């Protein structure tokens, strides 16, 4: 249902500056919105408030020394960042990762996806206005996941767990029992969380049909991850370009057709279920063995270039590394999922109201650490 502009009164557009300090810009994103009353006529994104020059810093660090900095890219899902970077360097240097390390990596990446989607879904629903309740529930579950990360690597936010050729330490003995309990707990939690807002009439009114991203636009803009899958693009790097040991697990790729905010929320919830499926399979199969290939600390990959990409929780996360056979990358480009997913935001929000702008923006799920790098 669209109404044309002629039916309504002529008004004077004015510019509203949303961000960089605003409760729902998820960091320091800034949108210079031109509004006509409540209707968004145009937005102009302004980036750079969190720019730290990480790509330049990579050129001044050793290959291993850059891993802690990848934690700071997408600080919601550092494990995935670690994984992507390590895979790129392994591809460059031709390192084979031990079996046990691969399993641990997959477990960590899937837990990270759960943790990320917890935040993504929670904060999107919080942007829709449910007073912090969905956010609190998902955050509570994220704490449970983060507990396990804390157990294996000793930090709760900047994990720095993956290493080139494996992972830094073996998982402790109490990890797998705790993971079993966690998977059970999360299965129950998702069911309960579905009751909370899945069929809520107000959420349906707010999110269904709002901020539609057409399939063609999504492809043209290079959108990836849950946002693309919500628009009907059945594209998951875990399945289309299986890395690590993802080809050994059974899981589905949830997709939706409409590409609206509600679909993006649904896709994330479904992905959480699929992640739980992968975890259930993976934790039964973890083999014994070493967790790290014999890689020198100051690794010197042969000169060349490599691009490795993984299906990070937010989409395709890639690292393009050029080596000149020194201890530091010659060039390390990070394919920023969040930045590229923002490319279609302008088309998505045009003509919607300010309140919709917030929920559409929330449904894309970006992290400013990755946008600005």
């Amino acid at each position, binding site marked *: 249902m669209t109404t044309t502009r002629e039916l309504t009164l002529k008004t004077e557009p004015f510019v509203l500056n949303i961000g960089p300090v605003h409760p729902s810009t998820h960091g320091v994103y800034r949108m210079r919105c031109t509004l006509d009353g409540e209707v968004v006529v145009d937005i102009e994104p302004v*980036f*750079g408030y969190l*720019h730290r*020059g990480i*790509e*330049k810093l990579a050129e001044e660090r050793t290959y291993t020394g850059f891993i802690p900095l990848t934690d700071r890219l997408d600080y919601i899902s550092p494990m995935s960042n670690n994984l992507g970077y390590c895979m790129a360097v392994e591809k460059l240097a031709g390192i084979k990762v031990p079996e046990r390390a691969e399993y641990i990596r997959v477990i960590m990446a899937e837990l990270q996806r759960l943790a990320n989607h917890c935040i993504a879904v929670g904060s999107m629903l919080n942007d829709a206005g449910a007073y912090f309740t969905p956010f609190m529930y998902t955050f509570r579950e994220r704490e449970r996941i983060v507990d396990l990360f804390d157990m294996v690597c000793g930090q709760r936010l900047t994990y720095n767990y993956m290493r080139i050729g494996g992972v830094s330490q073996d998982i402790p003995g109490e990890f797998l029992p705790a993971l079993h309990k966690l998977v059970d707990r999360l299965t129950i939690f998702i069911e309960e969380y579905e009751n909370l807002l899945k069929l809520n009439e107000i959420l349906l009114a707010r999110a269904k049909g709002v901020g539609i991203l057409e399939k063609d*636009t999504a*492809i*043209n*803009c*290079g*959108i990836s991850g849950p946002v693309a899958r919500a628009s009907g*693009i059945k*594209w998951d*790097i875990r399945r*289309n*370009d*299986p890395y690590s040991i993802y080809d050994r697990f059974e899981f589905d790729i949830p997709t939706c057709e409409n590409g609206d905010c509600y679909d993006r929320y649904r896709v994330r919830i479904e992905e959480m279920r699929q992640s739980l499926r992968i975890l259930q399979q993976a934790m039964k199969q973890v083999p014994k063995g070493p967790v790290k290939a014999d890689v020198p600390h100051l690794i010197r990959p042969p000169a060349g*270039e490599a*691009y490795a*990409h993984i299906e990070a929780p937010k989409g*395709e996360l*890639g690292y*393009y590394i*050029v080596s000149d056979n020194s201890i530091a990358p*010659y*060039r390390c*480009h990070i*394919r920023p999922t969040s*930045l*590229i997913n*923002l*490319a*279609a935001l302008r088309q998505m929000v045009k003509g919607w109201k300010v309140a919709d702008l917030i929920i559409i923006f929330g449904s894309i799920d970006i992290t400013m650490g990755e946008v*600005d*790098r």
Partner: protein
Amino acid sequence: MTVAISAKEIISQLNTKFPGAIEEAGADSVLVKSDSLLAVAEYLKTAEGFKFEYLNYITAVDYYSYFEVVYQITSLESNRSVVLKARSYTRDNPTVPSVTGLWQGADFQEREIYDLMGITFEGHPNLKRIFLWDGFPGYPLRKDFNQ
């Protein structure tokens, strides 16, 4: 599995279609002359049998003697990808044609490269600095950037 399309596969087709446009064909990448980049990219995006409609990323590397802009494009249907490269041999004002007309997703990435590497993308509708402020001295990702 995303098969990196072997450059030899498409090089012959590209050579017949655009004679003289290919500078060099690597193992999995095609180095295109920067003035014919747009035509090649458009052909690869639209032509039957290729349909490379998804732009994974754009990046640029400073090799001192030249700048190399790297495009990876993927065909979602046939699950194949190819890496296009274009070079600019000047350091003063390197220019490469913009592909924003073909892939809208290139918008921010080209702005980022312009901001950090100083490569001008001809035909970009809104080529401004994206992360750094206007008037920032120099381009930080260049190898000769002096802190």
